[in-house]
């Protein structure tokens, strides 16, 4: 009895030290700094430095640094639970709404730090909009869904009081609704029934309505969290075309599980792998044709993840 206990204590230090070394040496390659360096043309819209996120004791995102260039599509890919959605939600501080989340590091939007005291969250989220995984239109009419944001910000005023005070700008509202719906390639399908409930639309239409709603507050960056994962192929291809068009005016960051989709629509791709690590970030063609990391290559070719 005592002998076996002794032997375990004797062998313990050996195994504790030597075994992890061998595993790191064999299966876990060391991530090199230059894999994550991406030379792009133009200005950085968002600049992330050493971003760490913890959910309680769980270290969800490990020291991520990456710059996101202006007016382009950036795809974030990686297996489930690798932290890409967490990363996305840090860019407009939606993670503040998660009680257990703790965030370290720096995110700069046009050179202004967004993780500092005195940041106006209303203004930040107007400039950095977000589209969610499942379509989530409000249970209101299509028109109200689009005009909701501007109305809450006081840009659009309708209703009895505004009319009495002569401040009603219903025409502006209608223009805004039409412009957003056209930009989201939905106008032709719904212009006859703007006062119908948005929940009556199909899933793909609802998602484009959510994109239109996001455009209504005139954002500069649009964050998309797997926007096409709940949609059929036809609706997906419409969303992809739309993202292509949006990239002319907006900076789009998109999380996706679909690697063909990332290859089709993005200008640059960031690969996150398990453990909340950014492994490689480069031009999309480079990532998909000639990745530096062995693990990224395995992931892209479907051997891992």
């Amino acid at each position, binding site marked *: 009895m005592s002998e076996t206990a002794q032997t375990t204590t004797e062998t313990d230090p050996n195994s504790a030290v030597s075994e992890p070394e061998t595993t790191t040496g064999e299966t876990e390659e060391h991530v090199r700094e230059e894999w994550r360096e991406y030379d792009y043309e133009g200005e950085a819209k968002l600049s992330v430095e050493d971003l760490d996120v913890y959910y309680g004791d769980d270290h969800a995102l490990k020291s991520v640094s990456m710059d996101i260039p202006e007016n382009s599509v950036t795809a974030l890919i990686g297996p489930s639970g690798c932290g890409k959605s967490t990363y996305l939600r840090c860019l407009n501080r939606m993670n503040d709404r998660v009680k257990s989340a703790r965030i370290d590091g720096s995110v700069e939007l046009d050179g202004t730090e967004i993780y500092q005291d005195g940041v106006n969250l*209303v203004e930040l989220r107007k400039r950095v909009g977000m589209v969610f995984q499942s379509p*989530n239109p409000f249970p209101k009419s299509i028109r109200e869904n689009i005009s*909701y944001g501007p109305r809450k910000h006081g840009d659009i005023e309708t209703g009895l009081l505004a009319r009495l005070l002569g401040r009603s700008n219903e025409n502006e509202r209608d223009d805004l609704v039409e412009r957003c719906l056209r930009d989201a390639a939905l106008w032709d399908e719904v212009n006859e029934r703007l006062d119908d409930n948005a929940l009556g639309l199909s899933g793909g239409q609802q998602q484009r309505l959510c994109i239109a709603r996001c455009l209504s*507050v005139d954002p500069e960056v649009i964050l998309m969290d797997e926007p096409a994962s709940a949609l059929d192929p036809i609706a997906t291809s419409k969303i992809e075309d739309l993202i292509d068009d949006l990239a002319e005016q907006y900076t789009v960051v998109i999380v996706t599980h679909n690697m063909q989709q990332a290859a089709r629509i993005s200008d640059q791709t960031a690969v996150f792998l398990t453990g909340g690590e950014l492994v490689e970030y480069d031009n999309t063609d480079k990532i998909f044709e000639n990745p530096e990391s062995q693990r990224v290559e395995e992931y892209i070719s479907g051997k891992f993840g």
Partner: protein
Amino acid sequence: MSTETDSRNPLVKGDTEDTSAVAAGAVGLSAVLFALSLGSLFEVVDLGTPVAGVPLVTVVGGALVALGTAVIVFGVGSRLGYVETEPQSGAGLVAGIAFAIVWFVTAGLVASQTFGLGTVGWLLASVGVGAGVFVLSTATREDIGSTVPAGALTAFAGLVVLTGVIAPEWVWDLGWAQKASFTGAFTIPVITLFVSLLSGWAAAKAYAGFGARGRHTGAYVLVYLNALSIVGVLVILLAYTVVQGVPGLVNGFALGPGVGPESTVVLFGTTISWEWPFYLPFVMNGVGLTNDFNGVLPAIVGTVWLVVGAVLFAVPLGVGAAVFLTEYAERGRFTQVVEVATNGLWSTPSIVFGLFGFAFLIPRFGNGKSLLAGALTLGFMLLPLVVITSREAMLSVPDEYRDASAALGVSKWQTIRSVVLPAALPGVVTGIILGVGRIAGETAPILLTMAGGVFVPGSQTPDVVGGFEFTASPPFVDNPVLLDAASALPYQLYALITAGVGASGNVANPDQFKWATALVLLVVVLSFYAVGIAARYYFRRELNQ
């Protein structure tokens, strides 16, 4: 190979129209008997009524015998292979125990009451019969096990009724200290109700050919008859109140221009008055010596203002508390305590709320019972339910809406006001409906905080709108009506019943007056329900049209 195919049941059932017609007829007969016994239990049907020269009770007895025989014949026929069925090996433990208990009781009653055996004798007989039935229903095949005990009991009950051993005039004096006794008029419907349920279940099993399908059909019939009895009780209750109440309600009713009283409403200085084109004195008058017909108008108006006051008080507070608890407060010890407290408040007896109003509110509102004190007391009663249901409704609003709103840069309070509350509104309204249904019928708090009197004169009708007066000094507005005692329908009914014969001299027919009051109370509460349901329907349609 051949044995395997034999042990399987055919995929398509063979032609068994005649036999299944017998079983279906038995199910229908048991449903009719069930409804009939329910009706006679509530004295809607008289068992003594002759049907084609034979008293109804004899017909019921004959029908029970026929039903029981049919069920047994079907079961035995199935066992002997005359009927194509798919029975399992036994009726099951639950059915066995149920049959054993039923037969235990029946045998005990017969042995002790009919044969007059002593304790040892009837106990032996009961245990013997009970055990025998248990073995019969569990050890034999399902078609015998589930039909014979049920059918035999039904046929036996039918024979007892048919032979007049238990006739409507029969009385079983229990010999207890409290002088309790069972009459035949009560016992026969109860027995019929019970055995028709049993036989209906057995016949339904037989109709579906026993086995898994038979069990499903049997359960279906039991559940269906249960639901039927609930609806039946409700309909009988409503019908009884309506039948008893209508004569008093329409007493002195007249239709035509100019027959009704004149009403006057003063709104912002303009006086609008009109004449009702009909006269329904019971809801348009109070009680007075000079009245041609007396009525309960003060109590009706009192009830309406009471409910309006309670809702105005409780809904903003309750919804506000629910918003705080769901949207702002951290989930933890504090919200748990609040949850337990609201649940506890909701189950607090109404008389305790009444006592609180009596001890706390009345001294602060002019030391007299008043409409305001009553409305606030009922508001306190309503508050917990509004909090509980609003909280549930807000918790069920998907977080996606909140996320979407936050991602547009909309602040939390604006999100709550324009997204969460509208989406939760149908649930909130449901809570208010339920609560109003309860408080509108409360007697105890009204008794202690605002009761007016047994017979309330028309002059005491609370005119809350007209009672507002503007004064030159603070608080600038004054409403003496709110601080006057007022009556409400449930209290008026209670007072009428407890007032005794002497005080009833004020109205011509006190019994009619009471029933008409009950009917009006029912109509007032149901119309609150109707308003609430219409509101919920409207908000729900707004959300997902």
